[in-house]
């Protein structure tokens, strides 16, 4: 099993974000801030409720994540921005701002049809047709919405890619 990257969806800059371990790969840690753009965001909560993501003690928090990362062969903490939901043109600047505030190394995961291409709103005049028009996307997770299991599969794919590259 490829090991050792600490993945942190969204941002350490924002208070209220919580860190989780991926149950399928305990060496994989993620930090999630629920941007809540649309219904896909519920699937993150669903993944937590199903035990696919296990919350790391708040007291350990970011410091422990960094320690975990330093103890691995990869060393770097890759931060993940998880974009789940419809990106309206009105909200697009906020997503761009969240992305620009993340420190390198970072990776963006597009979760669900709306973030991937616009999805059901592909013909709407007020919806951005895919978040990849604004920021580079590392992994696209299909679904409307994707299952919580698909979120985990997507996170593992990001890890595999970072190990490969």
């Amino acid at each position: 099993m490829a090991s050792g990257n600490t993945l942190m969806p969204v941002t350490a800059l924002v208070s209220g974000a919580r860190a989780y371990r991926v149950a399928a790969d305990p060496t994989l840690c993620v930090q999630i801030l629920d941007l809540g753009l649309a219904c896909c965001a519920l699937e993150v909560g669903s993944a937590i409720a199903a035990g696919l993501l296990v919350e790391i003690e708040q007291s350990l928090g970011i410091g422990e994540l960094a320690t975990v990362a330093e103890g691995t062969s990869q060393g770097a903490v890759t931060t993940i921005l998880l974009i789940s939901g419809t990106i309206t043109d009105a909200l697009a600047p906020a997503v761009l701002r969240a992305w620009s505030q993340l420190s390198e190394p970072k990776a963006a995961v597009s979760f669900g049809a709306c973030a991937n291409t616009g999805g059901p709103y592909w013909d709407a005049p007020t919806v951005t047709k895919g978040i990849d028009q604004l920021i580079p996307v590392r992994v696209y997770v299909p679904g409307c919405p994707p299952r919580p299991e698909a979120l985990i599969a997507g996170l593992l794919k990001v890890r595999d890619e970072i190990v490969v590259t």
Partner: protein
Amino acid sequence: MKTDGQVPGQAHGVIALTASACTSCMICVRECPSWCIELESHDVEVTDPGARRPRTVSFLDAFTIDFGLCMYCGICVDLCPFDALAWRPDFDYASRSAAGLVQGIGELESWQQGPGDGTAISDS
């Protein structure tokens, strides 16, 4: 809620194709609200043994579903007169590119062989 990592067999994870059942009638393509299905076919004449005249059948050249665009509404599955499309529970097909979510006959058929029970979700 399931916690053993297994998704229900009737989950709407992906739409699978049985190419041999498809008659290229285009109903799924035209009814898709997302315009995410594309189909190409050509006519071939088949002469059955003992038949007086050859009959014309459609040969399926290409069938793609863009799962980046698909809203998983299942209208195509419901409307297909020949049950060539079916729900499967597979979910692990994330891609490194948006184009990688466009799946052709090969992938769509491989899901058809998958472990799902292919039944519709019922109230249980």
